[in-house]
């Protein structure tokens, strides 16, 4: 059973994701910052696909572009392409066991980061650096935590009782 959760609660849950992705951290850890907004979008695309779709993902990406100073369209395109994977494979992602789900999430993260890097390089905002592959690792490590916490959030605020997988 999927949770029935109201749209404004979903939108509210994006606030911590956006704040976490701009909160100041030591400069050394800056490259390792997980892609919070992407992880939150992926979670809601898995759990509530009728409420969070391509457009939500794209608009959050565009908002992140304006907020973080990346090239406008950079994160929007990256989120659009990675959410396309989740949307197309939703049938499988929703049914498979958690470790295999993690694999799909990792593909989405890789697509996001490669698109981000590509657009950044062609618009001359950033230059290629292997450090840009670190967030793929940290995001996939932090994904079970995000999933667990948002799952609990769903449990508490769902209007229908549902069983988590």
């Amino acid at each position: 059973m999927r949770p029935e959760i109201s749209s404004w609660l979903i939108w509210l849950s994006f606030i911590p994701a956006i704040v976490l992705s701009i909160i100041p951290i030591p400069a050394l850890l800056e490259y390792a910052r997980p892609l919070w907004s992407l992880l939150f979008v992926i979670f809601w695309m898995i759990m509530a696909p009728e409420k969070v779709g391509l457009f939500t993902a794209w608009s959050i990406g565009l908002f992140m572009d304006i907020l973080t100073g990346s090239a406008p369209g950079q994160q929007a395109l990256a989120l659009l392409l990675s959410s396309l994977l989740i949307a197309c494979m939703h049938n499988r992602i929703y049914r498979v066991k958690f470790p295999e789900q993690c694999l799909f999430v990792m593909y989405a993260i890789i697509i996001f980061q490669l698109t981000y890097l590509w657009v950044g390089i062609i618009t001359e905002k950033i230059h290629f650096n292997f450090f840009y592959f670190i967030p793929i690792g940290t995001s996939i490590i932090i994904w079970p935590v995000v999933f667990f916490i948002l799952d609990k959030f769903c449990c508490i605020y769902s209007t229908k009782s549902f069983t988590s997988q």
Partner: protein
Amino acid sequence: MINSIFQKKEYSQIFWSKFILLLLLSLVIIFINSHHDNFIRTKPWLLTLTVPFQWLADSPKQIKFFVEKHFTARTNLLNENRQLKDDYLLLQYRLQQITQLSTENEKLKTLLHASKELPGVVKIGSVTGISPDPQIKEITINRGLKDGVFIGQPVLDASGIIGQIINTSYFSARVLLLTDSNSRIPVEVSRTGYQTIAAGNYIDNLLILLNIPDTTDIKVGDLLVSSGLGGRFPANYPVAKVTMIDRLPAHGFLNIQAEPLAKTAYSRLLLLLFPAMNKKASSDHETGS
């Protein structure tokens, strides 16, 4: 119900047309913005939308400041107060000298029939956010259009120029630091008057001097000041200190690195410089310089 979304044809069509529309839209945004820099920047309301998030992200630091402000030992405060008073006295003494020098300078200028330099006006702002991408060296400050901040305005801190405003909203503005790979500043070596351009790079927080011939008189430790060419940055403000000169015999050009004097990551308070012509901004200023 949702599991059969992609089996239904009309759903699938809507889905793909939506995807292609958004794809084209983002490509158009990327294209337009890479060719016309002002496409997004001239729309202050876009950046204004992000201000609440900046405040939220900055709040832990503000809370820390608040706690530090209210729970500091009395002896520490007294010590700090004494230190500040000493500094104030020293600065007052320097100011006396400067006033004398500037009157003398003005007299000499009238003798030479040179144009008079109008003093600018400064406003104090503080850093509220730093760009999360380490290669995009931009910071957000808590001054915006309501304070008269404009695009291209130079930003300083106590020790030198930090950067320029590239984007404004009503309550905040974004500063492109000198060390960003897209930033260039015309400078001159204060010892010799040799003029050149200092560029940021994407690897570290250093400036690189471009195209300096092998025979140029430049040494490690030389002070670089802004030359004021181009009219964007004011003249004669300290910018950086030369830290490394690499002579490559085969090249004919020097590879020079300079360290910016302004410590951006640590300085919380910044100065926004208003040129004297800007009547609107100078009418409600706080400090004159």
